[in-house]
């Protein structure tokens, strides 16, 4: 149990179900993992796999249906309003859409100061100090001083996302959920933001939960990667483990579908049957079985537990375990 001391976040049996007219949608279904301090855990999966819901349930922006989230040993899911407000200083989120996640009626400085005022870090009399701090944060995230009084709509996507990052940093958090922070940005800007996030991680000893659908980005940033399919974790390991030795058929298919930016490497795509459906009224059995090329009888009937196949490389697949 020596390792557990440096584990900053532990997620146990986390579930988030939604009631929909069609039935119960299990967006996050029994997810377990932990993140060590200073680590980046990448979460990949296709739209609707529950990766965003997972991030938001950890922060209790969505109330989890059941399960526990321990942050530095404290159970976030059991916290009352006051404790939750306190813990928000340590746990922050960067949103996907820099156009939607900023209040259009606030200027850049107001946007960055709002978290500090809400959390009472600065009193009314400390306006000057807060202004100074705001400029410091802006410099840290690469926003020019002259932008303090601009409105977000006057800025491009890259700068807006820098504001989003500045807002998260304003509270000096220890852990940040990054919910597709670069998906809406152009490639050249995307690289700037990714570098910024790496720099901040080093200088502020941040821990990231990095949610994305882009496998190249997740490979570039992550210490470990978790692959999700219909609300469940199907595989988890280091980028090395996943990209050189993917075990789950879904991970394999996902990897084979990425277009490689090199005309000499021709893709050998693993064809999947059908499409991702919604995890509504799920029955027992592997959720990927319907689309899996290798599915056997057992896959359709029994849930497959997550097992360690060596060196903390986890996979949930009957076929791998039978070997």
């Amino acid at each position: 149990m020596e390792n557990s001391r440096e584990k900053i976040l532990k997620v146990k049996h986390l579930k988030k179900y939604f009631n929909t007219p069609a039935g119960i949608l299990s967006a996050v279904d029994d997810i377990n993992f932990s993140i060590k301090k200073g680590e980046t855990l990448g979460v990949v999966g296709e739209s609707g796999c529950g990766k965003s819901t997972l991030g938001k349930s950890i922060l209790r922006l969505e109330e989890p249906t059941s399960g526990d989230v321990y942050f530095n040993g404290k159970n976030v899911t059991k916290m009352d309003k006051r404790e939750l407000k306190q813990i928000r200083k340590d746990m922050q989120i960067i949103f996907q859409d820099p156009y939607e996640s900023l209040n259009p009626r606030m200027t850049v400085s107001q946007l960055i100061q709002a978290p500090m005022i809400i959390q009472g870090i600065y009193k009314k009399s400390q306006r000057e100090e807060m202004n100074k701090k705001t400029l410091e944060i802006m410099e840290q995230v690469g926003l020019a001083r002259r932008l303090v009084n601009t409105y977000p709509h006057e800025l491009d996507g890259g700068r807006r996302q820098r504001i989003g990052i500045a807002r998260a940093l304003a509270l000096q958090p220890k852990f940040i959920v990054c919910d597709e922070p670069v998906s809406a940005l152009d490639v050249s800007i995307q690289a700037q933001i990714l570098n910024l996030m790496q720099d901040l991680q080093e200088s502020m000893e941040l821990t990231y939960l990095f949610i994305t659908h882009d496998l190249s980005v997740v490979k570039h940033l992550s210490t470990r990667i978790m692959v999700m399919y219909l609300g469940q974790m199907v595989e988890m390991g280091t980028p090395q483990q996943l990209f050189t030795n993917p075990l789950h058929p879904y991970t394999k298919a996902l990897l084979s579908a990425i277009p490689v930016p090199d005309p000499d490497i021709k893709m050998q795509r693993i064809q999947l049957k059908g499409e991702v459906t919604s995890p509504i009224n799920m029955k027992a059995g592997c959720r990927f079985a319907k689309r899996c090329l290798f599915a056997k009888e057992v896959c359709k009937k029994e849930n497959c537990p997550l097992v360690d196949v060596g060196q903390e490389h986890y996979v949930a697949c009957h076929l791998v375990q039978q070997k």
Partner: protein
Amino acid sequence: MAFLEINKINIDYVTEDGVVEAVNDIDLSLKEGESLGLVGETGAGKTTLAKCIMRILPERTARINSGEIFYKGTDLLKLEPEKMREIRGSEIAMIFQDPMTALNPVLTVGEQIAEAVQNHQKVDDAEAMKKAEEMLELVGIPAARSSEYPHQFSGGMRQRVVIAIALACNPKLLIADEPTTALDVTIQAQVLEMIQKLRTQMKSSLILITHDLGLVAQNCESVAVIYAGEIVEYGTVHDIFKDMKHPYTVGLFTSIPKINEDVKRLTPIPGNTPDPVHLPKGCKFCTRCAYATEKCQNEHPELYQSSEGHFVRCFLKGQGGEKYGKQ
């Protein structure tokens, strides 16, 4: 005469802030059966160019200042609207980015494909419907679902319906504007594979507009890199991916994390795309280029041929690009 030839096309948008020079002196040509990738960032003018070929630019704001677009020898820009309408769909078809808004929610998908067929071919309803069902099968949707409405389909299937509509009349030229941006990777792969298959079957040409270098590498034969309304580099997919010359092209490659290589840190292009109302006087990329000289700021570079069929718009003639990449 080439299959499609675009000569010195210039398009402006008149906005409240001023005149936006969206497309500046673009020359391109496309052979029959060829697939061309148009690569560039938001606002580079890729979509504007595509809409200009289709002649569907918003009339109130867009202004085509000069240029010609020859399709099989006729200048599309001088064509009667009536004639253009016949060409649209039957000869040239376009697939838009968002499959959610491109379909009419109150018509069944079968009816929508049949309508596209009847717009260009004189066939009766039953025959058009039969053709629609064939098209659906072709894009991998069971014909039985032709009587369903768009909302009953998933995003990937809707995009396939859009493709079926575009391909219903066997167009000779298909323009696909970010056809898979809204889709997941596994679906993206399916859709592109399907477009490629149909393209070879029908021997049509393809213009693929995208920001994803991977898609271009896997699907195109030639590539044009566009920056601020100009072609900055043009060549075969090998020229661009293996022998890139322009600092911007190099910057694009160093910006993306690659699945097949490990880099500790990305090398982004510094700064932001220039304000389209106030573009730099000289080279449009000079504000972000690490090798820009005084000459670059004041004079506008012309395209030069670095090797057979490989054109670059840069005073550095390739040296800058190489240095950039080795940073």
